[in-house]
């Protein structure tokens, strides 16, 4: 994967946008020759973060702009970072009964998960490993 490559998408935080954003990410990773298994995993984890924005971010928020931003970026080391951010408010709670699989899935896939709730919520995930090393 070539460092410097980047995908940045601003879309309304609505459920019908999640699949197209995921597809754009998958095609971005395919152009960077990430293999299908790793591509699936990254889009799976990212899909969870996007679904959380749609489901939770603006429930307790008065924000007028109800957007979601995706940023996927290859850094110098050939590491992939994905950021999913919103301008809503993070809801801290015990897992709802029979739910709570989203963050669990992300944790199973990403090497690192950080949730920054300083201004809205920014979920950052990094993905490493042989599938993400620069191939040439």
């Amino acid at each position, binding site marked *: 994967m070539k460092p410097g490559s980047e995908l940045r998408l601003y879309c309304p935080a609505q459920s019908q946008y999640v699949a197209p954003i995921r597809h754009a990410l998958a095609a971005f990773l395919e152009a960077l020759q990430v293999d299908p298994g790793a591509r699936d995993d990254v889009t799976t984890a990212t899909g969870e973060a996007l679904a959380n924005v749609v489901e939770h971010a603006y429930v307790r928020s008065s924000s007028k702009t109800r957007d979601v931003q995706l940023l996927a970026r290859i850094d110098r080391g050939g590491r992939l970072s994905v950021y999913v951010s919103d301008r809503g408010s993070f809801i801290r709670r015990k897992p709802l009964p*029979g739910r709570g*699989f989203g963050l669990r899935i992300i944790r199973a896939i990403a090497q690192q998960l950080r949730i920054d709730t300083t201004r809205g919520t920014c979920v950052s995930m990094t993905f490493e490993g042989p599938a993400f090393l620069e191939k040439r």
Partner: protein
Amino acid sequence: MSDGESIKTIRLGGELEIGRKDEIRTALQRSGSDRAVLLDLSDVTYADSVALTELLRFCVSSSHDAIPVALVVRTPQFARVVQYAGLAGAFKIFGDRDAALAYLARSDTE
């Protein structure tokens, strides 16, 4: 249930994700006469936790009513996301229809 007549098949395909939540929930309905359910998910190319939550809800409520449910899963993303979610033990998953039907037939005679 040797004749398999009261095994209901529910088939879902494509991407099972948040944008199709209502459709998935509507598809996952039982009727009073169902004795067993085969969820044919062979053609599911993607599933997210919203879909898994709906599937789990369906399986749990079926189990309460003593209705066995078997899932046919054939695609790698789906198989993996079930693992990632820690739900491997929550579903009866089979790699093909015949194995799923055999399980449902067995459940009935038990």
